[in-house]
């Protein structure tokens, strides 16, 4: 169980990074996958900005998310007064191109419904939908300006290429990541200058581990989707994605305390979190390939 001091240090660094991002990027957005990591990130933003979230939250909706995730997203967005935006690859969906439809393989599906959808939503080339807080419904967003700073909740312990990320990581016009030639970053000074047309991914959670996330959720009693907990069937989701490609794990953890116990001393102490994500196994570094191409 991470100590209080350890969590304090992680939190202070993440808040510092969020404030640097806000100070340096005019067109700033935060990706919210509805999962536990980006929800912790959302909470950190409320901490950083004293109860406010002064930039939009962006969700890439593949249309294959578990329905409870979408309900939870809109409930919190209305309750916390969030500027909520979503985008999706409407062309690919209309053409029936997806793994669940049986027309493409898993990596291609991720490439279309996540990487391409994300790229087009960020650049403004794709349609964006914005939540109207009066009606509770989504409307086409009038703004098509490209985001120049994008906050993402990836953690270094998740997977190899993420372990080599920077806190501020540049992406070129096509969202590509030149991971063999990353700029240096030290002494809490980050890459806040960028060429026109490029953008910077900002990663405030890099130093957090899975158990840190749950310990922080416990500390602040942060609301999470019930899919993370066993509802009596003996299974729960450890990592949330699209339902055709994310398997629940067998577990009887019914609350945050039981999850922390399971991760520190229990059955998952030595088992990687993304074990239930099929696209990672699709080839020798599936996720690295996806990430070079703009995936989170």
């Amino acid at each position: 169980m991470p100590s209080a001091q350890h969590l304090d240090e992680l939190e202070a660094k993440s808040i510092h990074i969020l404030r640097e991002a806000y100070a340096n990027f005019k067109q700033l957005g935060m990706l919210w996958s509805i999962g536990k990591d980006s929800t912790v990130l959302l909470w950190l933003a409320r901490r950083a900005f004293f109860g406010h979230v002064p930039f939009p939250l962006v969700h890439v909706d593949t249309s294959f998310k578990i329905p409870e995730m979408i309900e939870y997203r809109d409930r919190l967005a209305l309750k916390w007064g969030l500027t909520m935006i979503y985008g999706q690859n409407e062309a690919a969906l209309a053409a029936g191109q997806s793994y669940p439809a049986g027309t493409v393989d898993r990596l291609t599906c991720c490439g279309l419904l996540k990487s391409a959808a994300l790229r087009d939503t960020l650049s403004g080339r794709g349609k964006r939908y914005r939540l109207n807080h009066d009606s509770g419904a989504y409307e086409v967003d009038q703004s098509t300006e490209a985001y120049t700073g994008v906050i993402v909740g990836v953690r270094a312990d998740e997977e190899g290429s993420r372990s080599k990320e920077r806190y501020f990581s540049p992406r070129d016009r096509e969202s590509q990541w030149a991971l063999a030639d990353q700029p240096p970053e030290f002494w809490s000074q980050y890459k806040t200058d960028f060429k026109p047309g490029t953008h910077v991914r900002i990663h405030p959670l890099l130093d957090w581990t899975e158990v840190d996330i749950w310990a922080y959720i416990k500390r602040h009693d942060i609301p999470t989707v019930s899919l993370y907990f066993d509802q009596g069937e003996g299974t729960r989701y450890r990592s949330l994605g699209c339902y055709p490609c994310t398997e629940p794990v067998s577990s009887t953890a019914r609350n945050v305390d039981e999850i922390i116990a399971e991760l520190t001393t229990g059955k998952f102490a030595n088992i990687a979190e993304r074990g239930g994500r099929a696209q990672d196994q699709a080839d020798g570094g599936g996720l690295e390939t996806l990430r070079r191409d703009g995936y989170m």
Partner: protein
Amino acid sequence: MHIVFVGHVDHGKSTVIGRLLAETGSLPESKLAQVRATCERMSKPFEYAFLLDALKDEQAQGITIDAARVFFESAKRPYLIIDAPGHIEFLKNMVTGASHAEAAVLVIDAKEGIQENSRRHGYMLAALGIKQIGVLVNKMDLVGYDQSAFETIERDYTAFLKQLGVVPAVFIPVSAMQGDNIATRAAERMPWYQGPSVLEALDGFEEAPAPEDQPFRMPVQDVYKFTRGGDARRIVAGTVESGALSVGDEVVFYPSGKRSRVRTIEAFAQPSTEFTSVGEATGFTLDEQLYVTRGELAVRADQPRPEVSTRLRVSIFWLGAEPLAEHKDYVIKLGTARVPMRVESIEHVIDASTLAKREDKTSVQRHDVAECVLRLRRPLACDPGAAIEGTGRFVIVDDYDIRGGGIVIEAQADAQHELREKVFLRNNRWEKSLVDSAQRAERYNQRSTLVLVTGPREGRRKEVAKALERRLFDEGKLVYYLGFGSVLYGVQGEHGDSSEASHDDLMHRLGEVAHIILDAGIILIVTAQELAPRDIAIFRAVVQTDRIETVWVGDRTAMQISPDLEIDDHADDEAVQMIRQRLQECGAIFRAW
């Protein structure tokens, strides 16, 4: 605790870490299997290093390119291990990895001995301010576990580190391949070694004590005023670099020298507090609505002041492929300040691998270390790095990227030094009225600003300035035009001659007049012929920097300053419109709804 592993390429850092993870049971079950499968597919023998070389390029080339973060836990505490690349090509990645660390482990090959990068990395660790260094002499199996081979390296490398002022915490003979002295001691193979294993040595490193007993320093990240939901707080936000702050403390912001008292310490979703200290990402409100901006340094009035200057003597390391050169424009970032700069002089350059000094250089090559004097376009507040780490180090940006870093040795007096001291004294003694500047801004619906309209003798600066006054006045603004000549005779000092000192003195007096008019909430338009950078620097020292807008009207031949706005070949009414737009952009006047 963050620990970085460094060393020359192929001396076995990644293998040591891989072995450490495996032997402490810190690897996810799927990870070992996954790497074994990858090795099989690529027809390579399994190596522990592959656990860390996560990228396809790294696995294909068998070389660590970028620093990886690895998490593991000993019986004592959790660790974040940073595996830094050893190849000289990737020194910037090594620096990136090492800068986060509280302690370092440097790996040297027992057979190859001390190599160029063993020394260079040692130097970089010292430059980054990492004081706890453990040295592993690896591949002891290749030298037959020979005690004298180990002792030779121990003696030579200790002597090298001593020149850098670093005393290594421990030397350990290991074989990462065989697992000797990694997680457990290899008493059978190296009975002559009585010291700790690597794991024991890691547990022996001490957490760096937080500099709470140093003066309070907080670079201002931003001033937040989020009005949503009727929130009226104006919060000065930042991360405390050193010291502590309580409600009621008097704070001063540098370089402006503005002061006020802390009214509240703010936080969301936690019990209210009256105290904040080093390491915290915090925020506070003030008794008075000061106009403070990002880049200033908040300090306590009852504690030692930071240095404020445009000239810094520094020790730097350079990572850019293009050498650091004189007469070229860069940007320095220190704390949250960000200021254009140039290198004034390069005192000497040090080859980090041999410690040889050269004094005849006019540029600093990639991977070299140097002592230089930097000349900044605007003053910033800092401390000598030896006194307060957080506000004594900086990075240099060129062409969108960080290309180097360094430590402030000292701030040197610049031409505005005395003037600045006078201004700090003035601000300290200034009698505050009950109406503050924010209230005036709200009442007058404008933010007081000094508009300096300058240009060549024959230009139309006066006509434009007067037309601007008329236009703003007609729009209901509080505005005042002041020609330089009008001041010349009234405030002329005892010098009465045309010496440089008297010119500066005159500019200073004009600046003080402007300061008073601005304090009254008025937009002041001043015209003067061919203002030089030196004049602008004086105004910046006397009047708040963020309240000056400079406009050059007319032919650019004689222009030495970089004005906020240049106007040439435009009719007067067009020029007025351009300045008006500029004033809207900088927030001095507001656009109509």
